[in-house]
């Protein structure tokens, strides 16, 4: 979606403000919101692309005015409500008002280290071959889906060069909607600054994105 999250090249956000000796969390609630988000992945049954969509799918002004863990919290509540695991009324009451729904399992303390160490690799086996190879010129498609995509606006319809064939990976555009992993070949595609930003671009920069094959056309 062309939402508030798609920030590359947008103006008016001001300077970057590094914070010396920044703590990992800035408040107690950030810790709990972070941990709840990670811990609910298993019982909730959603995938990372659904989580990302739940976070970005909001009014851009709201997205930009929230802190990052506020966005995580809002995304988590959306995912929970969509699945009927929690209601807004229960959050308001601060207590469960309905019996729990059956879930796949929960994250036990003994499994935390193991689950984090395993992570969630997205590479999948395939017997297909990649359509492109390193050095190939490609043009990104001009797509504007209302659903989740990982092709940012600032690189759409631009010509770049395949830098590297990464592998065969879960396709977020499908995975986010529940349509399945639908894995696709994934590439690092590099663009020259002026191709992205015209005469205003710094000619001595190159920018790359990681792009799945369905985002790309041969040139």
């Amino acid at each position, binding site marked *: 979606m062309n939402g508030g999250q798609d920030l590359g090249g947008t103006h008016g956000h001001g300077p970057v403000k590094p914070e010396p000796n920044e703590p990992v969390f800035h408040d107690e609630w950030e*810790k709990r919101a972070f941990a709840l988000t990670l811990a609910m992945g298993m019982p909730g049954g959603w995938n990372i692309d659904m989580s990302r969509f739940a976070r970005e799918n909001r009014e851009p002004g709201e997205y930009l005015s929230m802190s990052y863990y506020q966005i995580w919290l809002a995304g988590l509540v959306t995912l929970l409500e969509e699945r009927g695991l*929690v209601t807004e009324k229960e959050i308001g009451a601060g207590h469960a008002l309905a019996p729990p729904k059956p879930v796949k399992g929960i994250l036990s303390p003994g499994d935390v280290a193991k689950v984090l160490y395993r992570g969630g690799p997205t590479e999948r086996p395939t017997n297909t071959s990649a359509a492109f190879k390193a050095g190939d010129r490609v043009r990104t498609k001009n797509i504007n889906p209302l659903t989740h995509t990982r092709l940012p606006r600032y690189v759409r319809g631009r010509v770049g060069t395949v830098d590297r064939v990464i592998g065969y990976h879960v396709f977020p555009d499908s995975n986010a909607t529940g349509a399945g992993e639908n894995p696709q070949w994934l590439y690092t595609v590099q663009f020259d600054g002026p191709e992205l930003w015209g005469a205003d671009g710094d000619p001595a920069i190159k920018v790359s994105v990681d792009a799945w094959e369905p985002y790309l056309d041969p040139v």
Partner: protein
Amino acid sequence: MSGHDHDHHHHDHDHSELSETQLRVRALETVLTEKGYVDPASLDLLIETYEKKVGPRNGARVVAKAWVDPAYRARLLKDATPAIAELGYAGRQGEHIVALENTPRQHNMVVCTLCSCYPWPVLGLPPVWYKSAPYRSRAVADPRGVLADFGVALPKDTEIRIWDSTAEIRYIVLPMRPAGTDGWSEDRLAELVTRDSMIGTGLAKSPKDIAK
């Protein structure tokens, strides 16, 4: 809090008035705990992991080893995920890692314009600025301006390469080894490796910087 005595709440003394967000998170945790979806002890462990165990010191060890061990450096640049796992770092948000070598000719800088993708096993959780609009908007269009915000000026003829982490590939920058560090041990070298130098918004410290 669900009948559990969480010692982290003892640090709340400077927040006499709880914010709306804080109350909402507490309410949510209570509901999820009452329903049996989360075990608060698991939450404590998750927080402890990223507050105390996983952070940029991991990445600094990787960089320092690459600086002293050419064979390791070659393995890291060829396929970083297993090379990093040799040091015990792997997993969530670092399932597929690529290491990017800075040279006098090319400076690498990493961003996630769409959200906050970041190599957790080697750098920990991202700083606020990394997740915020100013960095995400400008890193891909005006990286020299962004570097200036960090007080970094690169030579004009150094090409800047920006890596927008749009997939599940996570990038770590291998900064240039500072001059004047011949014969230094890995431990000593690791002290020169800052988090920002592994994102590409900074350079490794010089021996002079840490002598101060």
